[in-house]
């Protein structure tokens, strides 16, 4: 039997997804013996030309992390799609845009201006900006075009599966590899983690009463969080109720609330769902009282859509607001 061919690629991402693959530790040697890698820039020396030379559909599965933020990423994502039978959007950024998609709340012009012209440490008297094409000593150099919007992967190419997490856990990755090798992947389109709220597996769930109300929202540095008690009961915003299970509650075990990296538990909008949850527990019989409680949420967009701005109902900042 020929070994399944695997490609691992990255876009607008941080390398944490790649590192998480290395973190499957003892199992990586067994798995590596059963597959053939054809691309993994972080760890292996195959170049894009190697992938270009493969027949279409030759790669069994490609694991692609990161959203698409420039023309080079788009080109490589399309190339890999063409060469692959199956594509997995690997991690929160590929699935929903991830933290980098918060850039959709700004515009590209603002980004360039602030980065290269107005930054307090930049000295740029000639007002040089990176350009798609430039000439230095007769050498022509090119750069990809940075997009105004960061796209989630399935806005650009077809995606067969979604693996949640920032990054996905070693257990989920191992499970994915085993299913790739031995079979047993679910129906296409599936999100490869339990379709239920994180609260269900949270060790603090027992301390959450069926009915409770909170009269204010505190910020995490303002109180000393009880290490056993439900964060919401402690007036801290925890994204657990609207977040998918499967992370092992690692942040909560670190005594910090969930920030939502596993995305929505179902097809709903993660932020809207959390706002709904808050609506049912925030105390406020009058409008002004409700306003006061809600004002405690210092950063609604960055809280409710920390990992999913590119997939959210927020869309992006209006371009005419440049």
């Amino acid at each position, binding site marked *: 039997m020929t070994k399944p061919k695997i490609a691992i690629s990255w876009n607008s991402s941080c390398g*944490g997804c790649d590192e998480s693959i290395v973190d499957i530790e003892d199992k990586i040697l067994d798995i590596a013996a059963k597959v053939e890698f054809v691309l993994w820039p972080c760890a292996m020396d195959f170049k894009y030309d190697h992938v270009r030379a493969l027949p279409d559909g030759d790669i069994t599965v490609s694991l692609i992390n990161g959203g698409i933020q420039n023309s080079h990423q788009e080109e490589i994502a399309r190339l890999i799609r063409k060469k692959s039978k199956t594509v997995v959007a690997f991690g929160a950024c590929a699935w929903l845009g991830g933290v980098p998609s918060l850039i959709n709340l700004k515009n590209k012009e603002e980004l360039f201006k602030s980065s290269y012209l107005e930054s307090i440490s930049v000295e740029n008297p000639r007002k040089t900006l990176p350009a798609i094409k430039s000439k230095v000593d007769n050498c022509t150099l090119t750069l990809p075009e940075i997009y105004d919007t960061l796209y989630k992967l399935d806005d650009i190419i077809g995606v067969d599966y979604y693996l949640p997490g920032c990054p996905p856990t070693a257990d989920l990755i191992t499970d994915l590899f085993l299913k790739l090798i031995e079979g047993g992947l679910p129906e296409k389109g599936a999100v490869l983690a339990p379709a239920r709220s994180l609260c269900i597996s949270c060790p603090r769930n027992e301390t959450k009463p069926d009915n409770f109300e909170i009269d204010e929202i505190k910020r995490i540095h*303002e109180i000393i969080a009880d290490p056993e008690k439900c964060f919401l009961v402690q007036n801290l915003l925890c994204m657990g109720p609207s977040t998918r299970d499967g992370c092992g509650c690692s942040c909560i075990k670190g005594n910090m609330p969930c920030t939502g990296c596993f995305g929505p538990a179902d097809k709903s909008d993660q932020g809207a769902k959390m706002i709904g949850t808050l609506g049912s527990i925030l105390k406020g019989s009058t409008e002004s009282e409700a306003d006061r409680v809600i004002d405690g949420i210092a950063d609604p967009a960055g809280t409710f859509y920390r990992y999913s701005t590119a997939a959210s109902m927020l869309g992006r900042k209006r371009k005419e607001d440049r």
Partner: protein
Amino acid sequence: MGKTITIDPITRLEGHGKIDIFLNDDGNVERAFLSVPELRGFEKFAEGRPAEEMPQITSRICGVCPGAHHMASTKALDSLYGADPPPAARAIREIYYNLHFFEDHVLHFYILAGPDFIVGPDAPKESRNILGVVDKLGVETGKKVIDIRKKARALISEIAGKTIHPVLGLPGGVAKTLTEETRKDLKKFSLEAIEFAQFTLKAFNDIVLNNRKYLDLIESDIYYHESYYMGMVDEKNLVNFYDGDISVINPSGEEIERFRPSDYLDIIAEHVESWSYIKYPYLRKIGWKGFIEGPDSGIYRVAPLARLNVAKGMATPLANEEYGSMYNRLGGKPVHNTLAIHWARLIEILNSAERISALSENPHITSPEIRNMNFNTPSEGIGIVEAPRGTLIHHYKTDQKGIITGCNLIVASLGNSAAMCISIEKAAKKLINSGKVNEGVLNMVEMAFRAYDPCLGCATHSMPGKMPLKIYIRDRKGKEITTLSQNLTESGYT
């Protein structure tokens, strides 16, 4: 102009990069460029975020060194709120940070850079990776590497919640106390880690230093360039990753600057080129003179060799002995051989293992007093740590509520961004003659950047301006439905 050779993507690093090598009509290298085709904009979208979320948001700049951003950010919050962490919190942060250093450096040596030496610089590309390393050193060694990293990362997770993207840091403290049981585990781990570090140094000695071909490579002018160096030192002028002054030495080894985090803008400035999204930091007083080496150029280098070059020695005994051996062998300080960064990195592995051992005996470390909540009204904060890849600076400005209004990051790999361009161009010019080039030679060009262990994801995080947070919710046709601003009530969700 003759042929152009493009290496795309450059590999075994974090982030995106490509090398363009331009040959003249004789087939010799005219110019070579390392460019970074990415820009993400963390500094820009930090605006509007609550400062206390920054340790978790900025860790997403890099999933390989999330601990470094997390810690620089946490220290910037200490400075922002004027709250020094209590002794237990400081010790917990530092032990966490040394665990991070340990596992990150081990990853680089065995998985990213090791293949060039252990498998061979011009070995076939199919085997020039961790699997090739395991083949060469034996499965037992492979398992040893996996095992020690697994233990380090389990301890990181115990202390900081998540290994990749930790949740430890808060202004003036940490989120979680350290139990007596964990303290004992740390002590036990540190002894194994010290042994592992010594094993790795011995392997480096046997495989690299005792091989004339490799030693020649380290000492050759292909991988040599003179520059300034920057790194953090403690009060005794010894290497420290977590806290201290920043020292800068000139190419002859004399200290020319010593500064506190708050003064970084007097020392460092950044230059912009049209052909890369990355920026190029340099020493402000010397100025930007182009991609040239030597004392007239403000280009400086950071990361392991830079840290060792600026310091008087290591703060732990075994690492300090190794420090002495390295400089003896390479002919005194400062060392300008780029490939010696690998050696310095291994000495730092030993240093971090010894620091974990010492900190695990710190009497404060299991104290429940982990928070200082005596906060000033926030306005501005600067935090600096040594990241595995060099000096890392986080600078935040906020309103009175602690909401970010400006953010400036000078990221570790950026410190080496200009130096890497010089290194790869120099290597390309020395290695490619009369158009003779093959895949092995190109990998040897890549080795010139790989020694720096660059994190190009970090380097393209990218900055400040001012804009109130306002989000328009539109329907599919782009028609505005409603506006979401700082005040949720406008959204109509309730």
